[in-house]
């Protein structure tokens, strides 16, 4: 049995070595994805461009603005002198927000009256707009508090703030989105390379007719599947290692949990992904169809439905239910648990069981399709 599996696996490696298209998918694709998602997709909102329409031009406004730009969140791009310019700046997306100080600001403050500072925020990107308003709120509150303290100090009193909020973020203290993205990215890269490579390698034999020669040999389906998938499991593990290494070197992500648990979970995930790949190869007759099917069933769901980027908890109930079609969802939960939280298997064993069920279902379906084709 072993030498037959070995013969298949070795042949597979030799073909892969000469197949530049496949080599590209298997090795270059993950690197590109990693670079794109790691660097380009950055959900951290920083260096927001603002314009200032300061009609007061006082020490107050200067101090307020200093407070705002001392963080790295805001960059003052320009100062303007008229209402008309506000519209142009926002229309042409030169700035994301405009601050308008009224001309009676210092007079009112000196009279201990309330002042309204206007913020005009580009609301097209709702997420960013929200973040901007939150930052502004915090900055305004803190300057306001300072003014209150000064006012009370003049009256010989001290301010008393009963409850002070002190948030601490665990597992990702700086709330960096890359830390959150890397496990998802790893899941996505693994499922794409595994599903595409395995389904293509089997369908190619169907397309070229070489599968017939294997079918008439004493090789069993199990030997064929092990021999065909073993090389891709190895390659997928290498891919996983590349992503982890890049995650460490580029984004400073260290594996907090047990590395063997990580290997174990990854193998179970690959089992599920290869099951899907084998199923696709059983229904597809050409490499083109297989490639499309592999793409649609692995890339899209793992990008959109796996919780990789969009949190599953905030999806409508029906869509939440649909998310179960992608094994990446369950792997990503496990990965985040191991990589970021460093917890043991007790936190995510259900995920691994689901992955196994997923793999078994798809391999059984493939066997069923194969059986039917033979008896048809």
């Amino acid at each position, binding site marked *: 049995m072993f030498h037959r599996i070995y013969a298949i696996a070795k042949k597979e490696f*030799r073909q892969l070595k000469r197949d530049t298209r496949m080599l590209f998918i298997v090795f270059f694709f993950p690197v590109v994805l990693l670079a794109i998602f790691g660097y380009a997709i950055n959900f951290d909102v920083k260096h927001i461009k603002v314009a200032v329409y300061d009609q007061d031009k006082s020490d107050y406004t200067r101090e307020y603005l200093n407070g705002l730009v001392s963080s790295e969140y805001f960059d003052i791009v320009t100062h303007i002198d008229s209402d008309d310019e506000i519209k142009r700046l926002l229309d042409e997306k030169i700035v994301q927000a405009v601050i308008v100080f009224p001309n009676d600001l210092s007079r009112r403050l000196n009279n201990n009256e309330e002042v309204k500072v206007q913020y005009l925020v580009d609301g097209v990107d709702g997420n960013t707009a929200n973040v901007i308003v939150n930052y502004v709120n915090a900055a305004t509150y803190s300057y306001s508090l300072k003014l209150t303290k000064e006012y009370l100090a003049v009256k010989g009193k001290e301010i008393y703030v009963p409850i002070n909020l002190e948030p601490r973020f665990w597992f990702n203290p700086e709330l960096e989105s890359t830390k959150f993205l890397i496990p998802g990215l790893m899941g996505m890269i693994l499922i794409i390379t595994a599903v595409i490579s395995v389904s293509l390698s089997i369908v190619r034999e169907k397309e070229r007719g*070489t599968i017939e020669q294997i079918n008439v*040999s004493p090789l069993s389906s199990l030997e064929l599947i092990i021999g065909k998938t073993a090389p891709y499991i190895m390659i997928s593990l290498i891919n996983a290692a590349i992503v982890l290494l890049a995650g460490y070197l580029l984004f400073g992500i260290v594996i907090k949990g047990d590395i063997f648990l990580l290997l174990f979970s990854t193998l179970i995930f690959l089992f599920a992904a290869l099951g899907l790949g084998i199923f696709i190869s059983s229904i597809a007759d050409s490499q083109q169809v297989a490639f499309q099917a592999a793409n649609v069933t692995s890339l899209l769901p793992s990008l959109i439905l796996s919780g990789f980027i969009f949190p599953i908890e905030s999806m409508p109930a029906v869509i939440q239910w649909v998310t179960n079609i992608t094994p990446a969802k369950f792997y990503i939960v496990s990965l985040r648990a191991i990589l970021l939280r460093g917890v043991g298997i007790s936190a995510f064993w259900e995920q691994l069981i689901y992955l196994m069920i997923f793999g078994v279902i798809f391999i059984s379906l493939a066997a069923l399709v194969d059986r039917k084709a033979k008896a048809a």
Partner: protein
Amino acid sequence: MDIQMNSIEVKDLTKQFGSFTAVDKVSFTVKQGEIFGFLGANGAGKSTTIRMLIGILEPTSGDALVGGYSIMKQPDKVKTQIGYMSQKFSLYNDLTVEENIRFFAGVYGLTGKKYEERKKWVLKVANLEGKEKLLTNSLPGGIKQRLALGTAVIHEPKIVFLDEPTSGVDPVSRRNFWDLINDLSAGGTTVLVTTHYLDEAEFCNDIILINAGRLIAQGNAKALKTNYIKNTILEIESDRVVDSMGILEKEDWVGETSIFGNSIHIILNDNAKGEADVRDILTTKNSINVHRVDKIVPTLEDVFIHLLEKDKTNVS
């Protein structure tokens, strides 16, 4: 050990795809070491029959013993007895000659000395000694075919199935390929080969002809020519071949007519008729100049056209 064993015994083998019957109760036997020709038009059911015999398609009913094992009950055992080469090249074009040989040897569990010995043999029959590192893709068709056959029998199976092995190959390569088939047969291997080249059928010890899934003739080439056409066949050369055929077709005593180059073959319904009657109709009544009229031994082509025509009227 003079007892002639049957390598393949097919009994009422039937395959239906939905309501379409591709193979209809076909029975035949193939003796050990013979070259068995399996003839029929495209779509007649040749490939379907072979695919059932090699265990990759399940029969709807009937059974066959291949190398002594039932294709219904022991398909896995059948696979240990056979080699198979299909009309599509079954080699990996992106592997080298040696890598292909190594792969098939590995699948059949050949190792060490045995492997070296068989590799040498395959390289020799494919005429590829010293060219082991060439990519299979770069080989000419005829050589590829011999390499495919070599790898298909690398494990020295008792029976080898060749499904239209010579389609699309030049005549010289076909000739060389048949020498190889003869060598295998001489070495005791049973060869079942499908073809639609009738000259190749002449090389076979036994032949069966199937049409629309049904077996319509069997025997060796000589028996087919004598047993299936009892009627006289005349070969006629005249000035106006097509007109002559049209005129003769209308006569009651003329059966099938067909054109062979610049002559016509007619099969007589009435063996009492002959050259005089032909000349009477063509020259006397229609003033067509007749060069010669000869009574001939039927070719396999005559036989098959006759049988297929007869079968067509039976079916409809």
